[in-house]
């Protein structure tokens, strides 16, 4: 999949200015960068939640699924209802099993912990098939065990359905674990992109190196 070049301005402040990008199908593209580098805004614009300055379609077509950083908890429903809302229960059960929340199926979403809510949200977005799946820090609230299970699930879904995954993450180790490609953002600009292994082990740009060093890697 391809995205057009676009920019985003709040008032007079330009927060994002990106060139045309390639999001290969069947691969996970991780977006890394420090806080405030425009990662989430990038995700929202691609998902169509926010508009770019250009006000035109940015994607070359296909359906888009987007999991926001703060996914709405749907306090008034049970986990099962949230997941199977019009979809097949077998898949819901499989997803819940994969993330170890099948025991919570009958519970009200209100009673879930932060990590459980995050797992439920991930299950929910994986219920449907999309050509492009945008996940904004899906594992931030999870512990290590759940994070690894979630990563495996994302990986498998990507492989099985052949969709393009755009994974916003602040965890470089996560990017290293599951990403095929990496985009590095800083102050709203793309400073480096390429195969995950290459960018993360041998960054070509000084800024990328400084950013990676800063995070102790």
């Amino acid at each position, binding site marked *: 999949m391809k995205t057009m070049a676009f920019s985003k301005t709040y008032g007079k402040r330009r927060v994002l200015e990106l060139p045309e990008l390639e999001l290969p199908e069947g691969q996970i593209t991780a977006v890394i960068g420090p806080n405030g580098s425009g990662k989430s805004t990038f995700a*929202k614009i691609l*998902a*169509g*939640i926010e508009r770019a300055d250009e006000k035109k379609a940015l994607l070359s077509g296909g*359906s*888009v*699924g*987007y*999991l*926001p950083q*703060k*996914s*709405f908890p*749907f*306090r*008034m*429903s049970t986990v099962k209802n949230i997941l199977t809302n019009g979809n097949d229960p077998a898949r819901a059960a499989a997803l819940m099993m994969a993330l170890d929340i099948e025991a919570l199926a009958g519970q*009200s979403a*209100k009673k879930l912990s932060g990590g459980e809510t995050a797992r439920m*949200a991930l299950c*929910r*977005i994986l219920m*449907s098939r*999309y050509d492009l799946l*945008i996940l904004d820090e899906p594992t931030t609230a999870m512990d290590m065990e759940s994070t690894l299970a979630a990563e495996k699930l994302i990986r498998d879904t990507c492989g099985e359905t052949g969709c393009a995954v755009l994974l916003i993450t602040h965890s470089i180790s996560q990017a290293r674990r599951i990403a095929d490609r990496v985009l590095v953002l800083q102050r709203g600009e793309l400073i480096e992109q390429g195969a995950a292994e290459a960018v993360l082990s041998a960054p070509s740009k000084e800024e990328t190196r400084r950013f990676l060093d800063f995070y102790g890697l």
Partner: protein
Amino acid sequence: MGSSIRKAIELILSADPELLNILSTTAKVCLTSSVLALVIGVPLGILFGAERFPGRKVLLVLNRTLIGMPPVVCGLLFYMLFSGVGPFRHLHLLFTVKLMIIAQVVLITPIIIGVMETFVADTAPALRETTRGLGFGRIKEYKLLINECLYSIFSAYLLSFARAIAEVGAVAMVGGAIAWKTNVMTTAIMMYTNRGSFTLGIALGLILLTLSLLVNVVLSLMQGRLSR
């Protein structure tokens, strides 16, 4: 207080026909007006909270002003409009239960709109981000939003019922506190107080509070079940 409580119990036990008439008028007015206000106010409140449209801010300021309208002013307005010389005289509504209900709906609806708007404005953006991310349409989005609102709809209803049952200025003005017809608990309490029958006034007040307590207990239990 003790004598008032005893009087209140005596009054209930004696099943005084006038008291029963006052109670049934009160129930009719309060329940109808609060439910009507809910039916009008909830959709408007959700709309104001969830949508952004030109004039929304102005309408919200107007709504907040209406929340602060003194009931007696509302009553006076309706009295003038529906008087024998008022523009709506041919409807013959002055001093009827119907007009009391209408006046209370006008008083209460802004409160419901305000409560719902505050809640929805807080909830809708995050919900919308998630539902759009899932690729849901507007109808499904609103369905989910309303489902999330259920708890606050109950809260809004409790508030509006409380306002309806406690309100005296408007119902006294447009109802005229006519015995056997438009006299409700609050106007009866006012009448007895003016007469100096303080004990009877407090006795009626206690009955009113007890009824209000019962309604609140039932609704709170329903609300509790909802959150389970």
